[in-house]
């Protein structure tokens, strides 16, 4: 992957710049010590300025390339996630909490920033700079070098010791902290319920009490947790005092020259700083690691491919490039023209559910036939439509299109002959016209209008602020349910070549007037086509030649349409 190679290069530049800048601090200390002790002439200050300039340049480089690394990594992960959503397909995407996926690709991945731009460079610097400082100290002054060498390991050792003893406590506390955040959110979300029972004001005192109890508990733990930083801070500053005082005394005795003494004073803190910095950055980056874990969990989800979902078993490897939307051995083209659809003893099971969504269903739909699927919700009607669409594959049995098993069919080509209106059609954040020509991107505006007119949508679309160019708001928020439904129907009309019509409760949640319009449009659309309609309302059921009742995954009756509703009452 080209993108990932360039990310690696950017990361390398970032780390190199950070390490180099850290090493330049040694040079700067060297020059400054010389100037301050009077060994170097004042002109050596130009050297200091040059080093500072170089360090600034490196800092800039580090910042820019760290930014490139972070955006590169996030973008690469995001692109892989987006591709993954596509492969998971409709049947399995619904298994995720969709809001979480949207958040993960956005703010979730941003949590990686501190890890990439802070922690990784800090590790590189901590690996090189203290060592370089030690080497320089050994060549300058053995006694000081030994002091630093002996105290330096105390930082990671104490850090680890204090960390280990407080880990359990702090983790529990941070858990409690997120719970408190959760408690507050919980109460705010439930406010309408609290209000309905007159408990809203009382809850304010609970919030106060919880926050107070939480604060004193947190402070109790922090008193211990911050001990680690106290120890580290003390290690570093006392070591400096430990180095400085003997140096002063040896200077007094004349056994050390001032340049070396100043160099030691300037260098010693630089040995401790990178280690402490690494600890700080580590804590700041923990959240991002959790975000990355969540992202990889989605990317790696392939192995538990349910038998009922689209993905083929061959995608069990984490290879994310294999498109699962088209079936693996998709070679056969679908039969030309209208074909018979035959479900042959089909059983569908969804993962994590004991009972089958469909059980031993056998059903033949002749070309041009209109079938109404009725029965209570959750009975398996939508699953039946999804079978024909190829969103789910049978756990047992076959779906035959003409004489060919749907599994052997080129799914894209088969779907091109379908027109589908889902239960809750999604309107995309684009213009009304583009929403209608979803399945026929090259359709002219004239064709779009014709489709909309047939779907009884032209009237209200014309009245929209910018007509067919009106942008549809997030999740089609500025259109009513009936209008959304009719745009989805127009989508189906905009595919004049479709030979099979699949409608999932097109009139659910519609008021009487919209229902009449949608029923009229559906009648128009199903003329001359095979139609499978999940229906609840009598007006819709009236369109069908056959009424098939689905109950708890089984077909319980298959009768010619009842036209005289009165006899049922």
């Amino acid at each position, binding site marked *: 992957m080209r993108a990932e190679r360039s990310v690696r290069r950017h990361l390398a530049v970032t780390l190199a710049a950070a390490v180099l800048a850290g090493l330049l601090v040694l040079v*700067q200390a060297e020059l*400054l010590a010389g100037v301050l002790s*009077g060994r170097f002439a004042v002109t050596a*200050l130009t050297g200091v*300025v040059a080093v*500072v*300039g170089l360090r*600034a340049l490196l*800092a800039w480089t580090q*910042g*820019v390339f760290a*930014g490139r690394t972070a*955006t590169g990594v996030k973008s690469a992960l995001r*692109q892989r996630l*987006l*591709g993954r959503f596509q492969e998971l397909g*409709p049947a399995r995407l619904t298994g995720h909490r969709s809001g979480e*996926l949207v958040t993960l*690709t956005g703010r979730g991945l941003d949590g990686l920033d501190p890890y990439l731009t802070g922690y990784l460079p800090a590790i590189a610097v901590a690996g090189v700079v203290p060592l370089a400082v030690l080497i320089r100290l050994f060549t300058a002054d053995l006694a000081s070098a030994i002091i630093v060498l002996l105290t330096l390991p105390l930082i990671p050792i104490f850090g680890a010791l204090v960390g280990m003893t407080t880990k359990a406590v702090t983790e529990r506390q941070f858990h409690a902290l997120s719970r408190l955040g959760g408690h*507050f*959110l*919980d*109460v*705010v*979300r*439930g406010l*309408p*319920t609290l*209000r*309905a029972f*007159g408990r809203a004001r009382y809850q304010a005192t609970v919030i*106060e009490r919880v*926050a*107070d109890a939480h604060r004193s508990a*947190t402070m109790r733990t922090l*008193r211990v947790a911050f001990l680690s930083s*106290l120890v580290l801070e003390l290690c570093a500053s006392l070591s400096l*005092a430990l180095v400085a*005082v003997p*140096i*002063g*005394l040896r200077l*007094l005795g*004349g056994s050390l020259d*001032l340049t070396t003494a*100043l160099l030691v004073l300037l260098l010693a803190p630089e040995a401790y700083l990178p280690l402490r910095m690494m600890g700080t950055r580590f804590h700041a980056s923990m959240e991002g690691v959790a975000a990355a874990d969540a992202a990889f969990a989605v990317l790696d989800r392939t192995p538990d491919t349910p038998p009922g979902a689209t993905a083929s078993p061959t995608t069990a490897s984490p290879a994310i490039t294999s498109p699962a*939307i088209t079936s693996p051995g998709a070679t056969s083209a679908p039969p030309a023209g209208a074909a018979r659809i035959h479900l042959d003893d089909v059983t569908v099971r969804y993962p994590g559910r004991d009972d089958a969504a469909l059980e031993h269903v056998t059903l033949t739909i002749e070309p041009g036939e209109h079938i109404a699927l009725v029965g*209570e919700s959750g009975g398996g009607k939508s699953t039946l439509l999804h079978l024909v669409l190829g969103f789910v594959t049978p756990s047992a049995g076959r779906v035959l299109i003409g004489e060919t098993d749907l599994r052997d069919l080129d799914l894209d080509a088969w*779907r091109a002959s379908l027109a589908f209106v*889902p239960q809750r059609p*999604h309107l*995309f*954040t684009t213009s009304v016209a583009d929403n209608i020509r*979803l399945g026929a991107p090259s359709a002219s505006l004239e064709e779009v209008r014709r489709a909309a007119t047939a779907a009884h949508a032209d009237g209200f679309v014309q009245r929209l602020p910018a007509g067919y160019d009106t942008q549809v708001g997030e999740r089609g*928020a500025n259109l009513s349910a009936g209008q959304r439904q009719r745009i989805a129907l127009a989508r189906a009309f905009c595919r004049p070549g479709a030979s099979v019509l699949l409608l999932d409760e097109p009139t659910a949640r*519609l008021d*009487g007037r919209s229902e009449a319009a949608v029923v009229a449009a559906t009648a128009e659309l199903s003329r001359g086509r095979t139609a499978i309609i999940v229906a*609840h309302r009598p007006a819709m059921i009236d369109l069908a030649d056959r009424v098939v009742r689905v109950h708890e995954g089984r077909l319980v009756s298959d009768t010619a349409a009842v036209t005289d509703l009165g006899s*049922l*009452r």
Partner: protein
Amino acid sequence: MNRRMGIRLGWAVLAGAAADLAGLGLIAAAAWLITRAAEQPPLTALSVAIVATRAFATGKGVFRYAERLTGHDVALRAQAGTREQLYESLIPPQRPRHGGADLLSRMVDDTEAVQDLLVRCLLPAAAAALTALAAVVLGLFVLPVSALALVTGLVVAGVLLPVVTATAARRWSARIAPARAALAGRVTDLVHGSADLAAYGAGDRALDQARHADTALATLERRQARVHALALAGGTLTQGLTVAAIVLLAQDAGVGSVATAVLALTALVSFEPVLPLAAAGERMAGITAALRRLKDVRSTSPAVTEPSSPAPVPAGPLTVEVEDLVVRHPGAQGRPAVDGVSLTLTPGRRVALVGPSGAGKSTLLAALMRLAEPESGSVRVNGVDIRELASDDVRTLMTGLTQDPYIFQTTLRDNLRLAGPDADDEGLTRAVREARLEHWVERTGWDTELGEDGRTVSGGQLQRLALARALLYDPPVLLLDEPAEALDETTADGLMADLLDATHDRTTLLVTHRLSGLERVDEIIVLEEGRVIQRGPHDRLVTEPGYYRDLWESEVLTRR
């Protein structure tokens, strides 16, 4: 912020400044000690510096510890205060906001901004300012011109750079926000529209668009990183140049090696607390935006106006008269949500509201509960207009099962008891039994924690739990909004039957879209587009052509 908070904040600032000052003192004392020792004075001349070095070294760690404790204490208190304020302003009924659940969680996230502002911006800035001041004062005593150089450098690093980064961050977030929203929109399309995309072979196009949105965002973010890089470089450069300038000035003035070393090294160290302020400046853009959003929430007026002197709450059997009620959603154009509805609930009478979604049924209930302000018409309880009552009092008279009932993250018992804090076990059990929930409660256990969003609770159980709450609360007028929603057919029919038993002789207003059992209510009102299109008892309505009969027939047809 009250006075005690101010004092706590003061302590936190002092502790932080003391830690930074100890760091400054440590390096100044050490520098003095070493350069002075090189001049080989008697040992006693160094003893103070030796003690000071050790004291500062210890002090630095201890004060830092104190700073972190006091700082976090103040921040936690401030955040709690912000949350209490936010909650207080959310208690009165709110107008519906765009964004729903996401908006609420963002609001809660926003309250963290106060903590960020204190711990990451204000406290470090105050401590840095005090430390810088000390370094400058030291410079003034030793060599005034060096103090001038130091001030210049510190102002550039501590004021100019943060201002630049804050401004740049604000400008960049204004440019990046739309790109983020665009990406979120594309991802939403990909996830929520996956069925439509797959069915219409448009998946690849949508994926391309999402990838384009990602590329656009990444490009912007990459360019934004330059601001941070420039601030880093600027800080390093300013620190280095200032130190070099001070050395040059000191050597020109011939103040001697001791003074030069002390001046140079204190200058070097005085930048340490100042340099991180540029990053704090970058944060400020997000923090101020969060604070502004919180202020907006606090300043929005509630959905209904409370009377200045509330009338006494009517007692005894209640008669509710709704007369020609018109309710319009705020900001909505066209037809009102409830458009001239009249109905009367006499004690013990049960009325059902039927109609398609969006017909105004829930809005009518909201007006009865004083959650929405009517545009015209009136609701009277025993002759008293409910606008003359405190809205909290109205909800003690008329309430029940509302739309979108909520399950709190607490035990089953507490979830139920919020509707009856004084209820005994027998009362709880009765309410549970009436809501046909007793088997589930037996299986689950009274003290089981119910999960986030009631995730361990299915839609049907949630609905029945909410019904049990309403029955436990037992208001004089019981309002039930779609009690059988999300239940399967058999349970729904059973629940309705039990419900109609339980509400016998209770004044009840029932909103439903299922007609089973409605032959037992006194009146059925069919609403469409906010208006009453049919009303009467079940037996009559099924014989008249219209919405009710159509719905009844389809229910019969889909039933087995």
